[in-house]
């Protein structure tokens, strides 16, 4: 509309201005307007970035395609949990990397949790020395970047352990060298399946027995030793069966031949360094989380429980730990996510995880930076979301049920 000289025109402009200022002065409308502007700006930003990337890739003549995943990878990988050789595809190399990442993340989570809980409890110990040792450990470890821990452990393994020719013999079963820990490899015989079946049956039995025992306890107050019966069913029975069936496993011992040990299995220094460093580092954080969780349960709870005549062990199990867990689990989840993501530092010591395979060598040999990075990011996102999902589920399970 032109800013005409007619009276009609000028009133119309004033009224429009009024509408706008009215809208702006209204709290609710303003918030909607601001949100719309923010959203549009956000979309515009991403559209700009994506357009820019596509435009520039096109400008240098590089298309966007995932076809390279089916080409032979042409490189070798030392640690592979599934069959792989240099003729396998990049896809297969990625799968090897995924398994290696999951292996170190899983092993790291288990060890970090165990160490973290021990350290957290030690940190609360009334014994001055124990307390201070845990304190110094935690403060040192969590204040030094994890990359340095990884390099340190790897350096120690490579430079202070002997070469294969003068390997440290661990009871004729394992050989510790700077190329890793060589161990006998189990080769199963058919009868082993019976033992495995028994083990699985033990687990199923334990789950059913546990819920049954709980039901009985709720109804009659009778308490069964669930833990020991479960241990018997899951561990002792299969072990007994294993020996009764005459140890149905052949062990292929590693043998020093030429440059290296042949046969058997090997845990490489790269894995050990990454696993230990990640676990030690994260354990320090978990220890603080555990300490906070235990301290969050007020002492009155323990005293009340004792006053009711509940023994110390049961007080811990039924009163303190369930309440502490509610505080511990949410931050613990983010530590698990940290381990998984930090495992990408593997690249510093040449552990072949997804960052080193599909996000490293494949990326470099094919020149598909964008595609490879998208894959790697999507994979880490997937792992993290899965861990989050599991931990959220667990968190819900242990939540305080209010009546």
């Amino acid at each position: 509309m032109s800013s005409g000289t007619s009276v009609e025109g000028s009133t119309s402009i004033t009224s429009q201005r009024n509408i706008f200022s009215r809208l702006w002065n209204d709290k609710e409308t303003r918030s909607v307007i601001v949100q719309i502007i923010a959203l549009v700006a956000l979309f515009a930003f991403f559209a700009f970035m994506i357009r820019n990337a596509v435009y520039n890739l096109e400008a240098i003549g590089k298309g966007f395609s995932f076809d390279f995943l089916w080409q032979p990878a042409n490189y070798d990988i030392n640690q592979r949990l599934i069959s792989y050789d240099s003729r396998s595809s990049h896809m297969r190399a990625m799968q090897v990397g995924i398994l290696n990442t999951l292996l170190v993340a899983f092993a790291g989570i288990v060890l970090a949790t165990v160490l973290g809980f021990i350290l957290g409890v030690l940190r609360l110990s009334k014994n001055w020395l124990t307390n201070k040792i845990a304190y110094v450990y935690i403060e040192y470890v969590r204040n030094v970047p994890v990359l340095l821990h990884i390099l340190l452990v790897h350096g120690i393994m490579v430079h202070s352990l002997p070469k294969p020719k003068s390997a440290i013999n661990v009871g004729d079963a394992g050989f510790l060298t700077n190329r890793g820990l060589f161990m006998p490899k189990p080769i199963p015989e058919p009868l082993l399946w019976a033992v495995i079946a028994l083990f699985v049956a033990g687990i199923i039995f334990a789950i059913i027995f546990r819920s049954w025992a709980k039901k009985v306890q709720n109804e009659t107050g009778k308490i069964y030793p669930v833990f020991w019966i479960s241990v018997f069913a899951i561990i002792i029975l299969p072990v007994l069966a294993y020996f009764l069936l005459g140890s149905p496993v052949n062990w292929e011992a590693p043998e020093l031949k030429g440059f290296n040990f042949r046969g058997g299995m090997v845990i490489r220094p790269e894995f050990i360094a990454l696993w230990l460093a990640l676990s030690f580092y994260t354990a320090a954080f978990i220890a603080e989380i555990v300490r906070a969780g235990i301290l969050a349960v007020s002492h009155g709870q323990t005293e009340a429980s004792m006053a009711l005549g509940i023994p110390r062990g049961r007080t811990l199990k039924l009163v303190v730990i369930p309440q502490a867990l509610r505080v511990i689990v949410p931050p613990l989840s983010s530590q698990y996510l940290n381990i998984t993501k930090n495992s990408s530092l593997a690249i510093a010591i040449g552990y072949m995880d997804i960052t080193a395979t599909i996000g490293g060598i494949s990326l470099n040999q094919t020149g598909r930076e964008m595609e490879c990075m998208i894959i790697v990011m999507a994979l880490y996102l997937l792992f993290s979301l899965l861990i989050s999902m599991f931990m959220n589920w667990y968190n819900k399970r242990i939540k305080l049920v209010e009546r």
Partner: protein
Amino acid sequence: MNKSFLSAAAFAALSMTAVNAQAATLDDVKARGELNCVVSTGIAGFAAPDDKGVWAGIDVDFCRAVAAAVLGDGEKVNFVPTTGKTRFTVLNSGEGDILFRNTTETMSRDADLKLTFLPVNYYDGQGFMISKELGVNSAKDLDGASICIQTGTTTELNLADYFRTNGISYEPVPVETNAEAQTNYLGGRCDVFTTDASGLASTRASFEKPDDHIILPEIISKEPLGGAVRHGDDQWADIGKWVVNALIAAEELGVTQGSAAEMGKAAGDNPSINRLMGTEGDFGSMIGLDNQWALRAIEAVGNYGEIFDRNIGPDTAIGLERGLNAQWKDGGILYAAPIR
């Protein structure tokens, strides 16, 4: 009104895709007054900072020669150290103008990674280094060995191919940089270190006891090492190409760092030298420079032979012979296209 304002803003944002990959690199470099040269993180003799922090080596000298030709000063170089993995991304993203980084020319790098390779400045091949005390004399005896290998290199692929075709097993120990390879090799994590033979010689020269290690006779690949630029800027590629050719031609024509200034003063009897020195013809303007471009490059770093001898020649700690890298007249395969 509100709506049209917002869509106008969104449109403005979308149309602001200002990045232009086709911009003339020469203009950028001149405007910046400095050449961004992509080099390695440190391979003695090729590109490594010395004890005073000054970069030196063959690749470094080629960077300086280009800077001298374009900017008139061989010191106006900003060295961008890269690993085997980051080098092409750094070049393709525009962070570097030109790359001289022990880089093997291959078809996929040329066509798929969108690089334009400059003439070869070092003919190399992949070799193996091993400790003498292991008593190995041939790569065929390496069955079961642990081998340190830089990731993201052609050597990684050659290694897999060589051991596969010869039916030998090995454990690859991937490392990121030459320094890391050295630590792992000397620490005994791997029995063998493999890379380009020149790189092995350079690495060995930096050992405390170089004589304890031998380089096995097998050379398992062709590694023509050369500089590279991005696809799409032919003028810039021509500058790189002809600076390299000029340095090689200078040796063939007997123009040295010391004699270049004198020879460039006036035209002499030899038209080839005259064209190189810019006293005849108008070759500089063909590539967007003045006619003294080659003269300045030679004055800055010397001819190919001088560069070779100063950095990796028989009198240096690295001690490489010219071999394939001698002029074609002397039994090598260095053969610069003529400037005419």
